[in-house]
């Protein structure tokens, strides 16, 4: 059974820190959710996609009478060309439909439009695309080899960006090391695989000339800006709605060509147009992630203290650059956060993004940190082995314990509990008992292993963090409008765009706490650019921190106004008034007034407060924080079958610290879901290309997200180190669960493999890979 150690429970607060049920759920459990694919349309689109990874389009032929859109029809529609102003970034543009050349299998070449989806699919089968093949470049190492064919004219050598860092004094410290330990890590490619694949529905309004685009996105406002830019239309003529969205995990934060085309078609046809992606399209042509080679070396002194790190990050970014983050999202994150939770002040890094003939890489939950944590934590285990000390002791020697701390890459780490969460995990898992059991098992020819992962995670970071990357677009701040209407009910309009995180519930808890009403009186509204304030959406473990912060700031203003109004109505000093149970009460008396009466007063009796407060009861808050670091220690215990290479997860334990927890039930759910995606990353999930650039894992039987079978009960332990960099004291935790498992599980596998004298440094650590290692070891003389 899963353990659960409660955090502070909000330290006596009424709503913050409580596991209240989600307001999102009643509609969803009754099949009343509204997803994009539920909308009827007059026209349906089927994309005809390239079966070739690289080549020149000779001709496209369509059946007579069919409506088939190609690049030739899209004159004036701009390419998607995201921009970075640093790191030798080469801007490359992606046409909405392939224009003259194809660069990956799955790239949309033509769009068939018909009255039904079936008809569009039938016609699409008859569209013939003749492509003159070019030799595809699938692997990033092949793409940077001398003489490799250039995929984009703008990017010589296929390097789209190159980041370099080196601290002063690095060479001397490196030369002084007692031991250099090295890992060559390989992270294979993944697909975020939300259960709802992509979908878009655009409807033209002949009265206003506006288009309403429903789409399954994490950032509706930026979709509006970007699509209007591509099409060259006024942004005011486009309304974007993210209705219920069936998971995103980063895949739905990038602009996809398909949404631009569907919007363009609605304007072109002056009608409604729908597109629903099928699973195969999602696996081959939506965004991929995590395809990296990292070589990491650590220089240690004689006492196993880490002195310096040197990293070479090679990130396969696919055929184009994703908007808005650019393809720098993975390599630059790796470069900035590689040192992780360890005290190391010397650092050298080369991080390159490499264009290949594969699906475009974009953000996926954890962005690079699952890979760098895997790499760094494997390095620490290898170093422990090299020094013949316990893996836990080498971490004890090196974890940061004094805060604030400035990292070798210039990041400011706020107060955290790296060491404490590790000790919590070590105690809970009972390492000595495990070692005894492991020994006994080995004697019987059974192989158990334990693995640890300690990590920090930058969350809730505002615009300066994006500006530091040189991004032309720096998402960061959020705005929230809180209104108490004249009946005393509360509406909060937010720029974030939650899609499963329960933010409507947690933000209501924050407001309820501040202004003394119950959460059921509060409605949080999001996802519609006509009603929500401009904002950046939900991604990067940011919404509770940033939108939550903006919510608190707006709520404090409402609170101040309510106290003033109550002071007048109750003829009392503001300092004597408490807001609770939907009322303002004068402490120590029976005098009170309801929030409904105060709200009515704020709108209808404004002459009473003239010169003191503005009419109405509506306030705005904007928040743009510097960022705050969450942390955790994950522990995995595995049982490995050397005959088959199969790994069974016996136990999985998380000790995490995400600052103040607003709703423990929701927080636990985020960790559970993240951990299981991480288990997929560690053991199961891999997008495999063959040499021709075709994908061999184009359905959910070949690309394998974990099922209930592969997942043990996840044991959670919590600490709460309130953040000093976040007004709510909360840190982000949406991604943390995903970051630890590859490191913890593969460390555990290597612990189990110790008697065989082989090591695996590749994820996913599939049975095939483990068997190959064991086979080679058996064959070795």
């Amino acid at each position, binding site marked *: 059974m899963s353990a659960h150690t409660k955090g502070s429970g909000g330290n006596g607060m009424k709503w913050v820190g409580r596991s209240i049920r989600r307001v*999102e759920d009643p509609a969803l*459990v009754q*099949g009343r*959710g509204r997803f994009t694919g539920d909308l009827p349309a007059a026209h349906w689109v089927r994309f005809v996609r390239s079966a070739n990874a690289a080549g020149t389009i000779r001709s496209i032929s369509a059946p007579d009478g069919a409506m088939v859109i190609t690049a030739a029809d899209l004159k004036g529609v701009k390419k998607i060309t995201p921009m970075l102003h640093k790191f030798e970034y080469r801007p490359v543009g992606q046409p909405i439909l392939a224009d003259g050349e194809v660069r990956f299998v799955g790239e949309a070449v033509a769009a068939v439009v018909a009255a039904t989806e079936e008809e569009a699919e*039938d016609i699409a089968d008859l569209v013939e695309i003749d492509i003159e093949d070019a030799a595809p470049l699938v692997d990033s190492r092949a793409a940077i080899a001398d003489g490799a064919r250039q995929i984009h004219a703008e990017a010589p050598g296929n390097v789209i960006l190159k980041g370099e860092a080196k601290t002063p004094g690095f060479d001397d410290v490196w030369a002084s090391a007692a031991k250099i330990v090295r890992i060559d890590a390989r992270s294979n490619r993944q697909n975020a695989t939300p259960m709802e694949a992509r979908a878009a529905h655009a409807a033209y309004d002949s009265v206003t000339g506006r288009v309403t685009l429903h789409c399954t996105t994490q950032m509706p406002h930026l979709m509006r800006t970007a699509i209007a830019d591509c099409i060259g239309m006024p942004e005011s003529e486009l309304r974007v709605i993210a209705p219920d969205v069936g*998971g995103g995990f980063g895949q739905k934060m990038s602009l996809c060509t398909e949404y631009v085309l569907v919007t363009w078609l609605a304007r072109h046809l002056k009608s409604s147009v729908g597109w629903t992606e099928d699973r195969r399209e999602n696996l081959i042509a939506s965004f991929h992630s995590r395809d990296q080679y990292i070589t990491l070396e650590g220089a240690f002194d004689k006492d196993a203290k880490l002195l310096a790190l040197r990293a070479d990050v090679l990130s396969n970014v696919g055929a184009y650059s994703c908007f808005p983050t650019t393809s720098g999202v993975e390599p630059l994150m790796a470069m900035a956060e590689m040192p992780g939770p360890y005290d190391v002040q010397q650092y050298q890094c080369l991080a390159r993004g490499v264009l290949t003939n594969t699906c475009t890489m974009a953000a996926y939950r954890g962005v690079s940190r699952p890979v760098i944590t895997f790499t760094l934590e494997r390095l620490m285990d290898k170093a422990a082995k090299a020094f013949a000390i316990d893996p836990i002791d080498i971490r004890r020697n090196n974890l940061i314990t004094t805060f604030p701390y400035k990292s070798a890459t210039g990041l400011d780490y706020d107060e955290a509990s790296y060491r404490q969460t590790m000790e919590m995990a070590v105690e809970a898992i009972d390492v000595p008992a495990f070692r005894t059991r492991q020994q006994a098992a080995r004697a019987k020819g059974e192989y158990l292993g334990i693995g640890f992962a300690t990590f920090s995670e930058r969350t809730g970071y505002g615009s300066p963090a994006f500006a530091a990357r040189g991004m032309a677009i720096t998402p960061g701040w959020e705005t929230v409008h809180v209104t108490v209407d004249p009946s005393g009910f509360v509406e909060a309009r937010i720029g974030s765009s939650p899609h499963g995180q329960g933010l409507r519930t947690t933000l209501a808890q924050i407001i309820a706490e501040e202004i003394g009403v119950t959460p059921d009186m509060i409605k949080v509204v999001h996802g519609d650019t006509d009603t929500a304030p401009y904002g950046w959406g939900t991604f990067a473990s940011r919404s509770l921190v940033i939108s939550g912060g903006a919510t608190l700031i707006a709520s404090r203003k409402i609170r101040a106004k309510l106290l003033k109004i109550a002071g007048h109505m109750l003829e009392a000093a503001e300092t004597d008034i408490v807001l609770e149970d939907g009322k303002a009460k004068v402490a120590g008396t029976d005098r009170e007034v309801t929030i409904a009466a105060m709200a009515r007063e704020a709108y209808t009796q404004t002459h009473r407060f003239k010169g003191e407060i503005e009419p109405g009861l509506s306030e705005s808050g904007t928040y743009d924080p510097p960022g705050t670091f969450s942390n955790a220690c994950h522990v995995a215990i595995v049982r490995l079958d050397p005959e088959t290479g199969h790994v069974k997860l016996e136990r999985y334990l998380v000790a995490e610290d995400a600052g103040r927890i607003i709703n423990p039930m929701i927080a636990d759910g985020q960790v559970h879901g993240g951990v*299981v995606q991480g288990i997929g990353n560690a053991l199961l999930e891999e997008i495999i290309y063959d040499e021709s650039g075709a994908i061999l894992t184009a359905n959910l*039987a070949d690309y394998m997200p974990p*099922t*209930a079978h592969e997942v043990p009960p996840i044991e959670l332990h919590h600490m709460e180190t309130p953040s000093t960099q976040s007004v709510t004291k909360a840190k982000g935790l949406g991604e943390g669960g995903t970051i630890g498992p590859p490191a913890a599980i593969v460390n555990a596998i290597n612990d189990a493999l110790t008697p065989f004298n082989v090591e695996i440094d590749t994820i996913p650590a599939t049975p095939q890979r483990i068997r190959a290692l064991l086979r080679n070891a058996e064959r070795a003389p």
Partner: protein
Amino acid sequence: MSEKAAITLTINGKDYAIAVEPRRTLADAIREDCGQTGTHIGCEHGVCGACTVIVDDAPVRSCLMFAVQAAGKKIRTVEGLASGDTLHPMQQAFMDNHGLQCGFCTPGFLMLAVGVLEREPDISDEDLIDVLSSNLCRCTGYQNIIKSVRAAAAEMRK
């Protein structure tokens, strides 16, 4: 395109007279011809189980059944689980135990679990996990789905 067949689908006790091509899946017919969009489509190749409905008391992946095959059979979807304002114990348990996040896979899990528990109210924990591993969820990590279904099973046995 081939000729359409006139059939009647009985969904949650209500008859829908529709005309569908023989190739039309039950999932598409439920959603598009009958307007019951609570049943979701996640993969269309029978792996994810988001489209699970109950046909004649057995959970079925509606993307792997043709609409014409379901004619004359009793089909239950997520929209029919509650009776009036009273939620089915399974729906209530998913809400009480945070058994859903984005909610896209939820209708499929609800119908799978209800279908199985109606047939096997005393199913063992091990068999239950076996059954639940037929559907995919990407948000919850299954922990709270398992907890929800166990809680509902206890409630349904009462």
